[in-house]
């Protein structure tokens, strides 16, 4: 039987490789991966997946690869996110927009030209939640986007509307707005939070630590992509729609951190609560210190807003239309990630 052909952009990255793995496991797709990098050492690569090196900023290269692979469906996961302080200011905005927006435009163009039937786009909850000074409780997809104040949130919003407005009867598109992703090989969430232990930051709590936020385990996001790809190829009830994809278990940032630190055998021995008002001034002061000394700090008002705001969403639309169900629950997900990183850190020490 002829399996539908699927092309995954960024398929050797953290999320991309997990999506490829999930697609391979269904045994019902013929897969092509494009990425700037070959599969990294220690991550899974699959013998019957075709890996092609290509840059999404090069339309000619893309067109060539797409014409050759002739995918029925494209899964577009490539994106960059500025980390640390860069997340909160607009410097470097052009680079972010170039990859997240221009790159998406190129992929859309290539997909349409090669006759693909649809495209699944990896968006982010930040399209809504990155309006940093606002709180979001149980928000759903009917909430209006376009108010994000970070370069990442804005670039994702623009790219997402490009993808959704490209939806036609011959070319079905949908957008999966994923919460912050974590899991084994995770390049950001876990290493950053783990770094707090080394820097002695774990006893400090910003605000009252009752604000709930969402996370999502990488395998669950991968499941959602497979479900979306299948939906667009079959009933296409998801065409033109955006979906929040989270673990469906809103939790306070503090508790998520504590549970993660426990995986590394660390439990803060005492706790100091810094009230939100005081923290705001400290962030403001830190920004000035950085400006005067010309250094890059980790503490700023943006980081304070991020740490104290409510930002969780409802995934009932994804459950209803895609049949999405976060298979790996948070306790299991943290255990798996903990195992992986403990191994990695101890290997590093041995070397």
């Amino acid at each position, binding site marked *: 039987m002829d399996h539908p052909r699927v092309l995954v952009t960024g398929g050797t990255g953290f999320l991309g490789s997990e999506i490829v793995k999930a697609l391979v496991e269904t045994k019902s797709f013929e897969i092509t991966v494009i990425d700037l990098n070959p599969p990294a050492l220690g991550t899974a690569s699959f013998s019957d997946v075709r890996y092609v090196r290509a840059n999404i900023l090069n339309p000619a290269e893309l067109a060539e690869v797409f014409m050759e692979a002739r995918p029925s469906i494209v899964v577009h996961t490539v994106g960059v996110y500025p980390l640390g302080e860069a997340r909160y200011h607009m410097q470097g905005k052009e680079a972010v927009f170039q990859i997240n927006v221009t790159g998406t435009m190129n992929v859309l163009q290539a997909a349409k030209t090669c006759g693909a039937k649809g495209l699944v786009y990896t968006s982010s909850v930040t399209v809504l939640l990155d309006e940093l000074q606002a709180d979001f409780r*149980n928000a759903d997809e009917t*909430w*209006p986007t376009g108010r994000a104040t970070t370069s990442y949130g804005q670039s994702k919003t623009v790219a997402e509307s490009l993808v959704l407005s490209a939806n036609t009867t011959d070319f079905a598109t949908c957008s999966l707005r994923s919460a912050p992703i974590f899991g084994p090989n995770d390049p950001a969430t876990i290493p950053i939070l783990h770094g707090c232990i080394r820097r002695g930051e774990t006893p400090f709590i910003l605000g009252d630590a009752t604000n709930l936020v969402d996370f999502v385990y990488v395998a669950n996001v991968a499941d959602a992509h497979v479900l979306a790809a299948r939906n667009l190829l079959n009933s296409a009830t998801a065409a033109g729609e955006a979906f929040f994809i989270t673990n469906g*278990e809103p*939790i*306070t940032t503090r508790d998520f951190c504590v*549970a993660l630190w*426990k995986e590394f055998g660390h439990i803060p021995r005492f706790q100091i609560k810094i009230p939100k008002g005081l923290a705001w001034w400290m962030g403001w002061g830190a920004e000035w210190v950085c400006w005067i000394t010309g250094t890059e700090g980790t503490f700023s008002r943006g980081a304070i807003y991020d740490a104290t705001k409510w930002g*969780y969403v409802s995934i009932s639309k994804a459950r209803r239309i895609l049949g999405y169900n976060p298979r790996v*629950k948070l306790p299991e997900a943290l255990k798996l990630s903990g195992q992986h990183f403990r191994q990695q850190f101890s290997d590093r020490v041995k070397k």
Partner: protein
Amino acid sequence: MPSLSSLAYYAIHPRELRQIIQWKVWHNPVHERDETKDPASLKRCFDFLHLTSRSFTAVILELHPELLVPVALFYLALRGLDTVEDDMTLSLDTKEPILRNFHDILEEDGWNFDGNGPNEKDRQLLVEFNVVVEEFKKIKPAYKAIIKDITKRMGNGMADYVKNAEFNVNGVDTVADYELYCHYVAGLVGEGCTRLFVEGGLANAALLSRPELMESMGQMLQQVNIIRDIKEDHDDGRRFWPKEIWSKHVDKFEDLFKPENKELALNTSTEMILNALNRADDCLYYLAGLREQSVFNFCAIPQSMAIATLDVCFQNHDIFKKNVKITKGSACQLMTESSQNLQLVCEVFRRHTRKIHHKNNPHDPNFLKISITCGRIEQFIESIFPSHPKPVDMKSPASIEEAAKKKVEDAEAKWDTIYLILAVVCTILVITSSMIFIAWLAGARFDIAFAQLKEQLGDLFSWSSNSTIAEVAKDASGHSEL
């Protein structure tokens, strides 16, 4: 007469005293019962209700008249079953046939039973059970059928447990056994009550199509009782905490009560509480399906008490030493809040969920799960009562139209306010000026009043304006000569 110690307690906890007084003074029953026409047997049934039930009597007595008697008899029937099951002095051969046939006994004229041990607190109910039978035969056949069905299933379930030697020696084994036990003694009550409410037209019939909701209502109450009564049950030689849970933390059940195992005992109680807390959102969902106020109160008050009890038991080592209870003041507050509407009950749940979350201990193996469950309850409440309105979408045409409409409405409202203020100001002006005019007609001297006012203000701010005052005074005196 209140004891000296409670007087002292309320002297330093005036808020609680206030809650008690508020409940006693302001609470009006939704439906009041007219007892004067009741036959003697029904009166006797209500006497028993008072004697046997502590917490449930009040809410039963306020129920809608349609359901008051059926629910009271349902309660007495179950209490009768319970009295047979609980009595350790009865032999298995005596117990089993009574438990298994109790649904028929309900219609057996003149049935009563005096075989209970002298210390069984509700033995008198069975001695005079014929009054319950007499009244039971008078209620509507539909209600009778429901009560008999539940009594039959519960009696058989209890008989199975009584016969189960393993259970009698070692207590409950797995979590599934534990929930099955709670199903027999409480989940079935939830089902029975729900069917009675729906039959009486006082609850949404859709509740029957979601059986897990009514099951959760009963499970929640029973599990909370089992958690709270750990010490008392242990002293009486009963074990309801399942081995599957406690064996993860301690080797022997008795070890839970040793002071040196404090932390392990607390970890065990956390896991028990987690299991109960997982039912909370179902309970709120269920409450949303009730139509009639007295039925809502009947269901909501015990649930609020249950979540508050979970809160006081959470991370509280006293449960292994004594009977932990919520204070009377908080109980009255909970009753006031739970006899109004679902939103207030949700507030109660949210408040206690946050307190539990606040006490959550990072060292506890179930730290993360407690946190997730608290988050889930919070999200559920948010989904039925959103705390923020959704912002207006300026991009979508539908909401632009809506926004424009709202703008027009806002503008109208603004002008309404302006007209209102103008009208008030005009009225005041008209009244004031006509008063001044009348006063002037009557010969009032505004010039003197004005001068004095100026003088006093001058004193106040110590201006030196003596000359003007003198002049006006001279002028005034001159004028008065005319």
